[in-house]
């Protein structure tokens, strides 16, 4: 005869496993002195184009590398490899986002202490990646001027979990009558205080400002990195 069920309090984070893997990654990155930046956006917002520009701009002064996640194909990795830096494709199959364990296995065999910057391009998706910590220092959310100024209001979680927003394809802003003030209002509504950059990977507009922010972040972080340089 069965008794009635008893209620037991457990209080456990559902993504405990991912959180633990992310924590392990974060301490590895810290120890190696590598600054890790992840990129999230909808498909086609220009993550790969921006990243290719960034890798080219930084490669002479810093040791840079990239991981790129996609459901299928290694097209993006091949595009990024044109910047002549180490690049690895993570093919997720049917999984719509990257998880910390995928990053850990993609990094097998890599010497992290030989890097200054590691970039992680997530799968193009404005929903799923928001929930998964990858151990990164900085999470960028990109959205292009062609997507509409209210995109952040439609996808608040991903904007709220990101640290910095980049508005891309600003060379097309006039053609699509992009309202920058409205876009800023949308971003601030879902992530008050968020820093915003305007960039065109095609013309290079805004790239200098964005890169100097990135370099300042590395400098700030290095103060706390345990490794002596």
């Amino acid at each position, binding site marked *: 005869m069965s008794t009635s069920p*008893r209620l*037991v*309090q457990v209080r*456990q984070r559902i*993504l405990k496993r*991912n959180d633990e893997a992310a924590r392990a990654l974060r301490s590895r990155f810290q120890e190696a002195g590598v600054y890790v930046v992840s990129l999230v956006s909808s498909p086609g917002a220009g993550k790969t184009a921006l990243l290719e520009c960034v890798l080219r701009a930084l490669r002479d002064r810093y040791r840079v590398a990239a991981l790129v996640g996609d459901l299928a194909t290694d097209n993006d990795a091949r595009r990024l490899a044109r910047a002549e830096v180490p690049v690895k494709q993570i093919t997720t199959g049917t999984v719509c986002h990257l998880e910390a364990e995928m990053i850990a296995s993609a990094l097998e065999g890599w010497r992290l202490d030989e890097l200054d910057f590691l970039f992680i391009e997530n799968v193009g998706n404005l929903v799923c990646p*928001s929930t998964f910590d990858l151990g990164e220092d900085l999470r960028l959310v990109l959205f292009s001027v062609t997507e509409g100024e209210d995109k952040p209001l439609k996808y*608040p979680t991903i904007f*709220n979990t990101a640290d910095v927003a980049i508005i891309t394809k600003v060379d097309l802003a006039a053609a699509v009558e992009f309202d920058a003030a409205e876009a800023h209002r949308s971003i601030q509504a879902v992530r*008050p205080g968020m820093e915003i950059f305007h960039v065109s990977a095609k013309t290079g507009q805004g790239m200098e400002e964005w890169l100097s922010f990135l370099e300042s972040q590395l400098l700030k972080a290095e103060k706390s990195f345990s490794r002596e340089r």
Partner: protein
Amino acid sequence: MHELSIALSIVEVAEEAGRNRGGRVVAVHMKLGQLSGVVKEALLSAFELAREGTELAQAELVIEEVPLVIHCSACGADQTPESAFELRCPACGVLTNDIVSGRELEVHALEIES
């Protein structure tokens, strides 16, 4: 559809907790924040798939939705924004990213039959 990943994690967490407490889990109670990025209905369907062939095959998922609450430094109070996704204090109109609750994604209790 990251809800399937989440549902598989729920099964994993609940199976482990149930085993530690020596019984059969008949229901999993979880808290789901409004800003967790997970959709309740999608999660319920995903859970039905995820539990198949596990110790939780018969278990029910009970979801308690947690509203978004922010702490407004201007009025010093915890407030629920009027619009779900605008982090604005309804009393003084100030925007703040000081989130008190609404990000929850946790199993908080299990019903166990011994």
